């Protein structure tokens, strides 16, 4: 589960440049076809995890999602064969890792402020901000529901997840809807509908942001030309 409130190196780059790099990186993972391409991307991701000291959080995240990854792998294996299953599972893990690298270095409200500074309306900016902010909250919700059902004798480990997994859906969805209702009330009660929002910082693209985007774009193009 992501650890909200701890952001490594959040001041180094503008949230918008990081968001663009995140989108580009995830696209590269999804379009990758060659083993070397995967390897190159994995090396980049592991280095970033090391530099940003996010190894521990990555391991904790992988531990949490391991049953889901395994289930995904088994289902894909059964339907499309072993090679496709391994490739798809690796792809999924790398997209999740890219998400961790982005979310763990970007406070959601900074992303929202930066988008407002770019001219988006506060309401649209909050769509992005809220998505980032409340992913961990929803993760906690799923965890609580799972614990509640396990306490009643239901099992979700291993293949039990296939049989009992759907039982999680109703309480999770309803709890999520209640949470969304409560949140909507709280936001409105604090002035959410107002047309103006003051960013708490100045956001301007700096040389390092342009360099970050340029480097990522060049790497993406190189991968494309070499491996396609």
């Amino acid at each position: 589960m992501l650890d909200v409130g701890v952001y490594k190196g959040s001041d180094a780059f503008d949230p918008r440049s990081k968001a663009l790099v995140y989108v580009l990186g995830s696209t590269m993972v999804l379009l990758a076809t060659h083993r070397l391409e995967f390897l190159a991307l994995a090396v980049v991701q592991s280095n970033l995890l090391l530099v940003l000291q996010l190894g521990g959080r990555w391991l904790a995240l992988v531990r949490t999602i391991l049953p889901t990854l395994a289930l995904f792998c088994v289902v894909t294996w059964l339907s499309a064969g072993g090679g496709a299953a391994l490739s798809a599972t690796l792809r999924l893990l790398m997209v999740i890792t890219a998400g961790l690298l982005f979310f763990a270095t970007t406070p959601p409200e900074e992303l929202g402020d930066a988008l407002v500074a770019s001219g988006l309306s506060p309401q649209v900016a909050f769509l992005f901000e809220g998505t980032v902010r409340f992913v961990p909250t929803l993760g906690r919700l799923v965890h609580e529901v799972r614990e509640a059902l396990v306490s009643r004798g239901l099992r979700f480990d291993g293949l039990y997840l296939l049989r009992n997994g759907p039982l999680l859906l109703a309480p999770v969805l309803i709890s999520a809807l209640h949470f969304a209702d409560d949140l909507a009330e709280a936001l409105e009660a604090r002035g959410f509908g107002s047309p103006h929002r003051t960013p708490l910082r100045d956001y301007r693209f700096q040389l390092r942001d342009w360099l970050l985007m340029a480097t990522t774009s060049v790497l993406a193009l190189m991968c494309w030309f070499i491996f396609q």
Partner: protein
Amino acid sequence: MTPPIVQCRAVSYRYPGQLAALADIDVEIQEGDFVLLGGASGSGKSTLCRLLNGLIPHLHGGELTGDLRVAGHAISSTPPHVMSSSVGLLLQRAEAHVVATTVGRDIAWGLAAHGLTRITIEQRVRDVAHLLDLTHLLQRAPHTLSGGELQRVVLAGVLALQPRLLVLDEPFAFLDAPAAAQLRAILSELHRTGMTIIVAEHRLEQVVATATRMVLLHAGRIVADAAPRAVLTHELSQWGLEMPPLVQLARTARLDAVPLTIEEAVAAGIELPPTQATVAVGPTPPIVEWDDVWFARDTAPILRGLNLASTAGTTVALLGANGAGKTTVLQHANGLLRPQRGTVRVMRRAVGRRPVAELARDVGLVMQQPARMLVAPTVREELALGPRFLRHNDPAWSDTIIERFQLRELLDRVPQRLSAGEQRRVALAAILVSRPRALLLDEPTVGQDAAGRRALHEQIAACVADDTAVLLATHDTEWAFTLPARWAVLVDGQIVADAQPSIVCRQADVLARAHLGLPAAEALRQCMATMEGRHA
């Protein structure tokens, strides 16, 4: 003369597709009033709170009739974001308010949303943080705070907008005694500075001594509106409310006085009933035992050599502050958590690595939010689910449970669509239908009105009569004092007192360390004993 801050004339409201939630509400609230808005669950308190800042009808829709003006704005034509600078609303669940990842940013959120300048935002955040003693927490992540701290953060976010009217919907529901006392002090101070305050609450004792006026709602209508003392001369049970304990003590003693504070109760000369009878504990077998249990989360110690036993046919109230680790203790009993050191035994067998699903046959846990436990499309199927998975089907026992919890008429209803009180009933029944030997209840009284709390009392008594070991975690000493239960007090990861309530209540240092309030009767008894001691 200044016009009332709230002018409500013949206001009625119904949620979309539902019966009327409020009917013919006529009330005027003057600037500077401190109103206690009382009422049982479903009486319309929360609806009225949401009406005052425009969440109703602008967010919820529905049909609003009558004339409602708040702080000079007509509610029907003023959206909530405009109202939010005049009316601050604090909802029951503080965590729902938190939208930012640090306390400072969260307090600033509303100010930024209103488009104020950064200088103003910074100044107001600093001022309100100072007022509510939050300056040292400004860089902290809200999810790392205690319940009381989080409540103050949310209040700070609301107060930063400098509203004229502050509305709080059951703000004490999740707070332990010191946090509740701190919130009361803050509200008194805000009232002293001229702010108009409305507190919706069904546990009247929380603010009755501070309020200048009391408005009671029942079935969506105002049934009483006067000074608190005058309202408390009525029989409140007809409206599903409990008298504040001190007033109840005065009534039991057949006095006309309406004491709102311990001092007034002493002055009224209340003759106290004898000390609560000692609960006879026979040599009943232990069902769950915690033996020198240690547990830490992210290196922060939570349990540090905890020893406790829950025996058949007895009730233990596990008391402690918010965040003391009560839930952690319960989760060790059914295997959701495993001790890092020490042993937990269920039916004299070490839990070890036994799966939770196996332990669930002997240990049933009802969580703080029962809705999270309900998965089936009907109550009937919900009650069948546990026995099916635990392979413990007993139709005769299921029938007994259905009768005991009066669920016959709910059997074909969708559990997730029931009221909160009904959901709690179904969740408890869904656990008991598998006939566990131990029943664990996590904060069972949170959000429960008088009827819910009374029903819980009866359900626990029935479990004990069935020889079930009951362990309930709570910070509600007033309610726990009414149970024939042993008290185990959790402080710093250890049980520091494990005895009859009357004995624990005499250990002032233990109660203070556990952030527990004294039940009114015991507080009064001790106050009178102190005075007698002085006279002697």
